[in-house]
């Protein structure tokens, strides 16, 4: 009978907790970095819960206990033990444990050759610049691909206001601050797609500034990097050729680059391999030809005040040619 009474509460708790998992959650870590954060959080939660329980019991005894007990609780010893000794012996080890876990001091990943990536927060998207060992670099946007098991050294900065780089499954937040470059080293354990989100209010469309992190097995990553580094693929059909022509003739190249074409603008995201990304417009739309067309036309309605120009003067046929071409750029 008692079980039946607590059953709904258990189910409700399970349902609520299930919302804590998934691809943007600190409770399901996929890297050493995130795991340490997770362990430390658990220690804090459980320790805090135990201390709270003890305090409640003592408060109960102070109110309802016998005269002897109450006298002892009000004594000087109780204040010294409870108010000085106890915080000292709990908080000091916790601080030291925290230092040890979060790796303040020499980074354990520094031994391996890390992949270097610069991520620049811009209102309201992410410019991602990969740099190889020779120092050559190329640009992508709104998606970070990393090899499983290899450390990735992220240089984080901003082009305008303060943003914050946060992929809960992989690491804690790191702010992107004007005039400063912060470093975050992380490494994913297992392949997967994780969601990141700007975690510092940065203006109207802040909530619509997300990105994906795709962790790939080392071999797949190398293949992807080769493709991503290369120039855009040539248009293969008549529609795609028209799309490229229209893209250039309508000035899209004034803000966007497609490497290998005349489009060399740098104000907006590089579109050389835009069709291969998991999402569009910084995690806002699924990446399909239809949503590319929708974005070109209605971007100010989808993400108000973003800096992409409204292009509502394009004919539906022109829009669909441009979006088929862009969608083909994998």
């Amino acid at each position, binding site marked *: 009978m008692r079980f039946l009474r607590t059953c709904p509460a258990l189910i409700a708790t399970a349902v609520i907790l299930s919302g804590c998992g998934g691809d943007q959650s600190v409770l399901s870590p996929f890297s050493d970095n995130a795991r340490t954060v997770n362990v430390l959080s658990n220690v804090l939660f459980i320790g805090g819960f135990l201390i709270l329980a003890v305090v409640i019991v003592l408060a109960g005894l102070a109110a309802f206990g016998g005269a002897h007990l109450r006298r002892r609780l009000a004594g000087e010893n109780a204040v010294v033990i409870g108010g000085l000794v106890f915080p000292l012996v709990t908080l000091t080890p916790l601080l030291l444990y925290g230092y040890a876990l979060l790796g303040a001091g020499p980074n354990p990943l520094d031994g391996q050759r890390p992949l270097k990536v610069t991520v620049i927060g811009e209102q309201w998207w992410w410019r991602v610049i990969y740099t190889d060992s020779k120092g050559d670099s190329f640009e992508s946007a709104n998606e970070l691909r990393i090899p499983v098991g290899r450390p990735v050294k992220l240089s984080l900065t901003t082009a305008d206001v303060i943003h914050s780089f946060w992929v809960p499954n992989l690491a804690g937040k790191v702010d992107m601050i004007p005039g400063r470059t912060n470093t975050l080293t992380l490494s994913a354990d297992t392949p997967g797609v994780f969601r990141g989100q700007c975690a510092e209010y940065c203006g109207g469309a802040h909530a619509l500034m997300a990105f994906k992190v795709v962790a790939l097995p080392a071999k797949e990553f190398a293949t992807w990097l080769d493709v991503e580094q290369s120039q855009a693929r040539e248009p293969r059909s008549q529609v795609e050729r028209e799309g490229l022509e229209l893209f250039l*003739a309508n000035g899209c190249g004034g803000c966007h680059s497609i490497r290998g074409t005349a489009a060399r603008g740098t104000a907006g995201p590089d579109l050389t391999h835009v069709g291969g990304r998991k999402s569009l417009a910084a995690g806002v739309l699924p990446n399909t030809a239809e949503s590319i067309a929708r974005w070109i036309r209605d971007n100010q309605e989808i993400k108000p005040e973003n800096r992409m120009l409204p292009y509502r003067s394009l004919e539906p046929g022109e829009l669909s040619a441009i979006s088929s071409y862009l969608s083909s750029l994998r």
Partner: protein
Amino acid sequence: MIPGFSTPRLRALGSWIVGSLVAVICAALLFAWSGLYNIAASSGHLAMTRAFLEFGMRNSVRTQSAMIEAPALDDDVDRVRLGAGHYQGGCAPCHGAPGEPVNPIAEHMLPPPPTLAPHVKSWQDKHLFWIVKHGMKYTGMPAWASQNRDDEVWAVVAFLRRLPDLTPEEYRDLAYGNASAQRRPVTALLSSGSDTPDIAACAKCHGTKSAGPTSNLVPRLAGQSEPYLAQALRDYADNSRQSGIMEPIAAELDEQTVKAVAAYYAGLRRNQDPRPEPSLTGEHDAGEKIARDGVADEAIPSCLSCHGENAAERYPRLAGQPQRYLALQLRLFRSGVRANTEQARTMAAIAKRMSDRQIEQVSAYFGSLRSFSLQPDERDAALTAPEKQGANQ
């Protein structure tokens, strides 16, 4: 209680006032109902009435225009020429012009539209501006067709300042611009057929086969793309592109004429006019950089990505457009006056990111391309070489 007035006396006074008011209103209604007042324009006004109306009108103009700040017009040739072109079509039919009598129909309006030359001196610039912009109730003087284009109204004011001193020849030269050479008798116009459009209305201000625009506030149309020119005329006609000068002209054209005019100007070669730009600021190097590369940090795309030779025909080519015209249009985009079509909204979004300095720089750059000694075809090649290279990679 006021001394000397008892309550009954006050009450009697009140009734007397109310009674008189009611009587006056009834009399006025009765008079209007009877139709005895003669509203005929032919009957004119009593001298006393005329003096009273004039007194009220002058004071109204002065009071209403008190807050207006006039720009320095000091014989601004560009404004004078643009204002003259509009005056010829929009004002002269009623107000007359040097060497051109008032239209006899307009002469019989009440009040008759005054010949302006003797009157201009009695008004300040801001008074003239107010009259031209807002028009006058009960007189037949219309308001400016686009209430957002103060720049055009000032052009008319600049011309009005010159009006008293003009000889008929000088007036003809200013007002008919490039059309003066082509003026033909009405019979010749009637018999000329419609295979070539009569572009006299355009040539007053814009160029012709052999001449550039008469004013640096006027764009050169020669060699502009046909779809762009036709769309501009349609936008002027339905007021989605606002202009008190272009709207009356464009609104009169049917679709066939719109296409013919657009085709005529699209067929002309660019850059035949060697007249140097007088107001180049020398900042065109910085302007060239913006035109070619944009300003990435401020999300300003390169101008040439839409206005270069390889761009879609829906966008205008800017090389050789007068600096003053370009700067003016960029400011109209920026202030939202020119943002009523989908395409204009794209440009307005860019112009909002531009500073006054950047506007002057890019305008100076595109304006400076006019003085290139290259033949149009060579110049076009020089201008677009980098794009072409890129496209061939």
